[in-house]
Structure formats: structure tokens, C-alpha cells
């Protein structure tokens, strides 16, 4: 049961993304756009959580999975950037 009105996010399907991680930094290739991107440690971890999730998530839920509620603002920024890059989309309300 969901009561929050906060935006909920889902990533593109895992098969639409290729990624590698070295020392906390990530590179990711979006198969839908053909573009590759460099992600910092937080953004990379957020993407991994979204890819592994069985359904859409709020920023607060992602923060909880990261065990870091102080990062909600940064997580929201990363999600907005993912949206711009075509790596994540907002769940329809």
C-alpha cells in the first residue's frame, strides 16, 4: 500500500543497459540511445538499485537501501539526470 505522493522511478530494463564499475566509478551504456556515460559512486549505486528492483522506487526508498537518508537530495538529482539520459523513467501516477 502506497501513501506517498513522491515520484516513483524505474530504470530501463536491465537488458537495455551495459555497465562496468571500477573503484566505485561506473560507466554505463544505454542500448536505447547508444550513448555511454560516466557515473560517480552515488549515481552508479542508485542505478544498480533501480536495475535490481522489482518495481518503481521513491528516492527515499533508494536512500533506505543505500542506508543513507541524508542523500535524498543527491539521489533525486541523479534520478532527474537518469531521466534526461533515458536511463530511468517516472512511474505514471
Amino acid at each position, binding site marked *: 500500500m502506497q501513501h506517498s505522493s513522491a515520484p516513483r522511478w524505474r530504470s530501463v530494463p536491465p537488458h537495455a543497459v551495459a555497465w*562496468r*564499475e*571500477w573503484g566505485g*566509478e561506473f560507466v554505463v551504456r544505454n542500448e536505447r540511445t547508444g550513448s555511454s556515460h*560516466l*557515473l560517480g559512486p552515488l549515481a552508479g549505486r542508485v542505478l544498480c538499485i533501480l536495475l535490481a528492483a522489482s518495481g518503481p522506487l521513491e528516492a527515499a526508498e533508494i536512500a533506505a537501501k543505500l542506508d543513507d537518508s541524508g542523500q535524498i537530495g543527491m539521489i533525486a538529482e541523479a534520478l532527474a539526470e537518469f531521466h534526461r539520459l533515458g536511463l530511468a523513467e517516472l512511474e505514471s501516477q
Partner: protein
Amino acid sequence: MIVRDCAPEALRQRLADGGVRIRTGPVVNSIRSRSQKVMDGLALHYAEYPVEDEAGFADFHIAVAPPRSPRRWLRPQIVFQFDGAVPFFPLPADQAFAMLEWGLNWCVSFHCHQYLIVHAAGVEKAGRALLLPGAPGSGKSTLCAGLASRGWRLLSDELTLLDFAVGRVVPLPRPVSLKNASIEVIRSFDRDATLSPPVHDTAKGSVAHMRAPRESVRRASEQARPRWIVVPKYAAGVQTRLEPLSKARAFMHLADHAFNYDVHGRRGFELLADVVTGCECFEFEYSALDEAVAVFEALAAKA
């Protein structure tokens, strides 16, 4: 048979008629030209390269010839022809050999999609390849020429070909293109280096080519495993500085400097990621070539 085995008149005749087929690494180039500059350039730079049978397969059919215009008698020009098409504007005739070299690079970078092609110089020591990706002016060719002059095997000064099957560098040793101040830097650094006479007022300034070391040409079929990725930056007067570069940033740098990364899709991503995984990655700033070469000698000695 190598180019040096051809008598000059026979080479001239083959160049003028059906084309001389010269193997450079994995590709065979059928080259036709009546230009004396091309003839001289081939004799100087390609003496050690294999000549393939005229009846055999050639990857690229190339000609360097005067354009069909009255200017050929006023201020002589030449054009680069590829399979009969003319992909570039004409250049002054004294730039004929440089145009051939640029054209050969174009042929590979736009057609050899069996490889992932990175705009990078490459040299090898003890089976380990050092890749120097960078834009024009980054100092990669100067550094590459300096290392080749000190015993590193030249893989390429411009186009690093990565093999998809094994992730190794496929050598494409050809003359090293030196521009402007780099020409004198290399002349001073290696008194034995063989350089073509500089051609001035090209689109890149003054250009001269350094002959690839004979051993590099002879071993052109030996692939090399990438071991170091170094992003070079030449800047006058700076201290020599080698700093670690994260693998993710090195990946992006390689992808940004690959000619056909987009052509290969996910396959290209996985290949580059595998290459980066197996390499130490650095940023490198230099102004003194002798110090720069010493840094890489030390790096190779530690490996």
C-alpha cells in the same frame, strides 16, 4: 618481396600503371601515382614493407593524381582518389606524400570496422602495449616517435586497432606524422631518425614523417596486449607529471577517441571495458621528451 627489392624504375612503372600493392599491417593498399613526391616518399618510408602480388586482393585502391582542372598547369595540385571517388579537396602538389598518408589513415578509420579503432598512438615493449589516446596537438605522436627511437616497437602513431576476438592491439606501423616544433624535437632527440623533408603550409602547419623502425615493420603481424593507457598532454615548460587516472575516466576517454565505437554498439563497450580492466591508466603532462621517455622506461621496468 619488399619495396626495397623493387628497382626504382620498376617501382615507378607499377605505381604509374596498375598500382603497387603495399601491405601495412593487416591491410593491403593498391597505390597508383605518377607524383615524384609519392615515389620519393614510398622509397624512403616504405622500403621495408611487403609488396603483395598484383593479382591478389587489395583492401584499398588508391591514387594520388592531378585533378582534372586547368590549375594543374598554373599551381599544380593533387587529389586523393579512393575507388575512383575523390573524398577530399585538392592540395598543392608538394603535399602529395602527406596527402597519401592522411588518405591511408582515412581509409582505415572509415572502413576497417572489423576492429575497434581508437585515435591513439601505440608502442610496445616486452609484449605490453602502451596506448596514448589523444586529440591532435596532445603530443602523442611526438611521444610515440621518441619511444620508438628508444627501442619501443611502433604499433601506430595514429590509429590503434583493437581486435574483438582477443582484445589485443593489431599493429599498423606506418610513418610517424610530426608537425611543426615536433620535427626539430625529434631531429634533436634522435640524430639517426630518418625524416622526410618538411612540407610547409599544410592544413596542419609544417609536416614531416619519421620512418617507422625496421623492426616494427618486420613484426607487424605480432599483436600486443594493452597494458597501459596514458592520456598525454604536451604543454611548453611544464614539469613531467604522471598521475593515476581512474579506469572509468580512461574508458570514457577511449570511447570519445574511438572512430567507430558507435558502429559496434554493446560489443564495442564490452571490448573497451575489458581493455581498460587489464590496464593501468594515467594522465601524463610533459614538455621535455627525454624526461618523458625516461618515465615510460621506468614504468615498463616495473611491470
